[in-house]
């Protein structure tokens, strides 16, 4: 499954779940790959770190793989050997009042892992 399919799936899912994402300040979610793990970062658009929230990790077919908690520093770590990432990952962060997502494509992982 390539990144575009993951994006389509994630977007279609989120379009139902999040009809209005435009609050006064939005949640910015980003995930970087360091081969062994994905580091999830969340902050509000006003620059404040998101200090709590649920992190849901889904595969490319929108199946929930695992759930984590954001740390006080607004980050969470997803070890890649703990999830099936062959089809990419969708990382959702939900604070209760705001939510957003980041898509980790297979290309993102391959680029960092050299495979």
């Amino acid at each position, binding site marked *: 499954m390539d990144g575009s399919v993951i994006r389509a799936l994630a977007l279609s899912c989120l379009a139902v779940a999040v009809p209005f994402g435009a609050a006064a300040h*939005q949640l*910015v979610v*980003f995930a970087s790959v360091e081969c062994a793990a994905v580091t999830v970062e969340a*902050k509000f*658009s006003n620059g404040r770190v998101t200090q709590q929230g649920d992190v849901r990790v889904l595969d490319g077919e929108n199946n929930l793989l695992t759930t984590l908690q954001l740390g006080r520093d607004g980050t969470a770590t997803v070890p890649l050997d703990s999830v099936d990432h062959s089809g990419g990952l969708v990382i959702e962060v939900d604070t209760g009042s705001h939510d*957003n997502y*980041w898509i980790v494509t297979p290309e*993102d992982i391959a680029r960092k892992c050299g495979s």
Partner: protein
Amino acid sequence: MKQHFIAVSLATLIAATPAVSHYGMIIPSDPMISQEDGRSVALTMSFSHPFEVDGMMLETPVSFSVTHEGTTTDLLGSLQSATVMDEQGYTLDYRLERPGTYIFAMEPQPYWEPAEDAFIIHYTKTYVTAYGDDEGWDTELGLKTEIVPLSKPFGLWEHNVFQGIVKLDGAAVPYAEVEVEFLNDRAGATAPDELMITQTVKADANGVFTYAPPSDGWWGFAALNTADYTLTEEGSGEEKAVELGAVIWVHFEEWTGQ
């Protein structure tokens, strides 16, 4: 013979009319890159008359850099030679590794403009935001001369005002003159009078200027000042004035309402 003389005179007059302004240009493929857009931005650099889509040669810049989260990275060696508006320009595909605002800036070589009997140096920049994070949109780079945005320099609707402070050597320039021009590469806009090709506004006593464009698209703002130094013109060996331009390119989005 007399008719021929008149025709030549008119042609000379038209060609000599300084109706348009020179602009350094950095135009991104998109000023707001979302994760669905990919992981990079494509930049096109040129020196031109943007309303008339009339290119001029852009020599290899003195510097080309990107600033993100307070770190400036030299990208001069990554520029790719390209033809832009039928003249020498440059392109660059730049990977956006993290969210935030990326400011691309270029210092060109001094351009000798015989018609103005002066050199022109346009310090040119544009702001690109990545992945929904606009932090850093008001960053001041500390260029020799610079327009520091007071309006977020992306995500503006057409007809919104754009405000900025004109700075020279870090200080606001009272009543600075700012020329504004539209990149007319797709819209096919026509000017009823050539005075309307380049719009001109002045800053206030604090160096703050305001402009509201009539349409969506890329608009260039060039604040012009005369340098406190001269450069030697090779042909004559004479010292010539230097026009310093603080140029910022801002994209306005089409209003989607009724």
